[in-house]
């Protein structure tokens, strides 16, 4: 069976004044219908860039490699250049929800107007129909007084409600794939839980594929079916969520898990990953994680080993340098 979305060998590079920066290197991912893929990583690890590539939303100084493919519904998105084609992926088959719902709604346009505008672009319907779809969608995501909210501006809504409205807007065109870029990071913990539950419900109901980006493994544990752990633009480990959380192989994944507080032993000291994430300007050659590998690893240090994902269990892939780094400890 072919996947809903399949990303193959994707490199993303930015041309800047300081030179060409590699934001994402050799990434392969896939998402099936009704499945949630969680992407975890620190800020700057290329999670958002990967997601934006799927909608070709990266800025003008971006370049993709020739042999990369992003196959969505049997079409290669990277080949899209015409307005019509781009429209299909932007808001049509793919929708995105952003971290800052306040900043992602245009401040001086009513929420309803923005929803209707989107619907009119993608669906062959009139304004009235668009309005009723929007209001129903607002109701569906749990916004009370949907008719009133429809005529309000984003700044008049509370944080949680804004995020709900954002989700309603993203879902109103019935996309096949939802990209959620840190949708809960800016919210209070209680609202976070509500929004996560909402997203889970919706996935079940609409059977769409989801890429859920976050830096919080706790959130991933709640929503995702599969996880990809990213570090400095590369996937270092990926696999089913239970497998990864219970049996992490890569030192970085282990580090991320150890940095979480243990619910059974709250007094235990948290162990942060030593070292700093290097600047993307001097990205290490070979194994990207080697500058922070906690164990001495003579092979990895000089960057002679190439990054390569190895299947250690069925469906559980780990970067080979990571295995080496872990072993030599």
């Amino acid at each position, binding site marked *: 069976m072919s996947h809903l979305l399949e990303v193959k060998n994707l490199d993303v590079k930015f041309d800047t004044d300081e030179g060409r920066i590699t934001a994402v290197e050799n990434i392969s991912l896939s998402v099936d219908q009704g499945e949630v893929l969680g992407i975890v990583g620190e800020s700057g690890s290329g999670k958002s860039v990967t997601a934006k590539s799927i909608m070709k939303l990266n800025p003008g100084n971006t370049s993709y490699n020739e042999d990369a493919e992003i196959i969505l519904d049997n079409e290669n998105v990277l080949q899209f250049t015409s307005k019509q084609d*781009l429209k299909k992926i932007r808001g049509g088959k793919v929708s995105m929800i952003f971290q800052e719902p306040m*900043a*992602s*709604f*245009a*401040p*001086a346009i009513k929420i309803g107007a923005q929803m209707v505008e*989107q619907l009119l672009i993608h669906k062959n319907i009139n304004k009235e129909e668009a309005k009723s779809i929007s209001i129903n969608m607002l109701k569906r995501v749990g916004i009370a007084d949907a008719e009133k909210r429809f005529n309000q501006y984003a700044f008049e809504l509370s944080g949680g409600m804004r995020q709900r409205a954002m989700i309603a807007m993203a879902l109103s065109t019935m996309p096949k794939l939802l990209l959620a870029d840190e949708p809960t990071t800016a919210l209070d913990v209680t609202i976070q839980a509500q929004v996560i539950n909402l997203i889970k419900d919706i996935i079940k109901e609409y059977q769409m594929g989801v890429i859920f980006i976050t830096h919080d493994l706790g959130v991933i544990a709640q929503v995702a079916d599969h996880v990809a752990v990213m570090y400095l633009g590369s996937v270092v480990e990926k696999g089913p969520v239970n497998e990864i959380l219970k049996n992490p192989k890569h030192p970085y994944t282990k580090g991320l898990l150890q940095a979480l507080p243990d619910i059974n032993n709250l007094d235990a000291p948290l162990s942060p990953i030593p070292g700093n994430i290097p600047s993307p300007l001097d990205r290490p050659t070979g194994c990207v994680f080697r500058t922070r590998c906690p164990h001495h690893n003579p092979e990895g240090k000089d960057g002679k080993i190439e990054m390569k994902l190895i299947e250690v269990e069925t469906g559980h892939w780990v970067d080979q340098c990571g295995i080496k780094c872990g072993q030599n400890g």
Partner: protein
Amino acid sequence: MINFIQFTLTRAGLAVITLLLVCFIVFSLMELVPGTCAERYLAFKNTQGSQITYEDIEKEKIRLGLDKPFLYRYGKWVSNIVFNGDFGDSCILRMNINELLSGRFTLSLTICLVALIFSYLIAIPVGIISATTKYASLDNTLKFISYLGIALPNFLVALCIMLFMTVYYGDTMTGLFSQEYENEPWSSAKLFDFLSRAWLPIFVLGWNATAFALQTVRALMLDENDKLYVMAARARGISGMSLLWRYPAKHSLGPVINSIGFDLNRIFSALPIVALILILTEAGALLIEALARSNDQQLAGAIIFLLTATIVFVNFITDIILAIIDPRIRKGVMGGG
């Protein structure tokens, strides 16, 4: 609605306070100039042959109320302007300032406002193009032209055009009217004549303002374009002109409106010198006349007051417009509903 009225009244109150402060500054400046009106008037009489004594000066001072304390005279000056619309007499030209200024100030104001409107009509589309174009060379060229607009002062442009006209067409293009219409009452022929000449000062005054407005629009557009909501709109499939006009352009309109007052300020600032070069018979030229030639502080004070009052008024209006068009401010001043 009540809230809106309240907002308007507060703004109006602030505008009045600003104006009073400006009046105070202007009036103090007028006071600082050595020599009083009485002395000057009598010195003038002296040149006409009459003998002036100390007593005459004192008498004249009392007649003009110059013996009263500073604050009293300030209050009187202001209240005369506010309640009677009377700026008093110019002590050099021996004329009522209102009479002197009435027609000319309207004329100056018209020219300046037209220049302002033109500069925005050009600056807004060009600024948007400059900010959003894919071609760096087009942006750089437009940027260079707008910088040139700053580096070439208006009076220099006026001068060059005028010299050029004189040399190659034999007509100086100076003044606002041809000689035959100078003292005629307004008629369609005079209006036509006025329009055929007024384009030059309008162009010259608008020149600088366009450059500044262009930069304002460009910077604001770049700023808005970087914001997340524009990316979010693109992610929803909105593209092309509808993206541009409804998103970044619409949202940078507020700050652009906000800058109108400052651009008018710039145009007023350039007015006197441009007027001097183009020999326009309006308030700006009179200001130079008053200051550079005859030290006529009453007249200068009145002109500066009128110019500033116009700016304060325009700022007040733009504040109100802003509150009407921007929902964030509107909700802020009018509350919930």
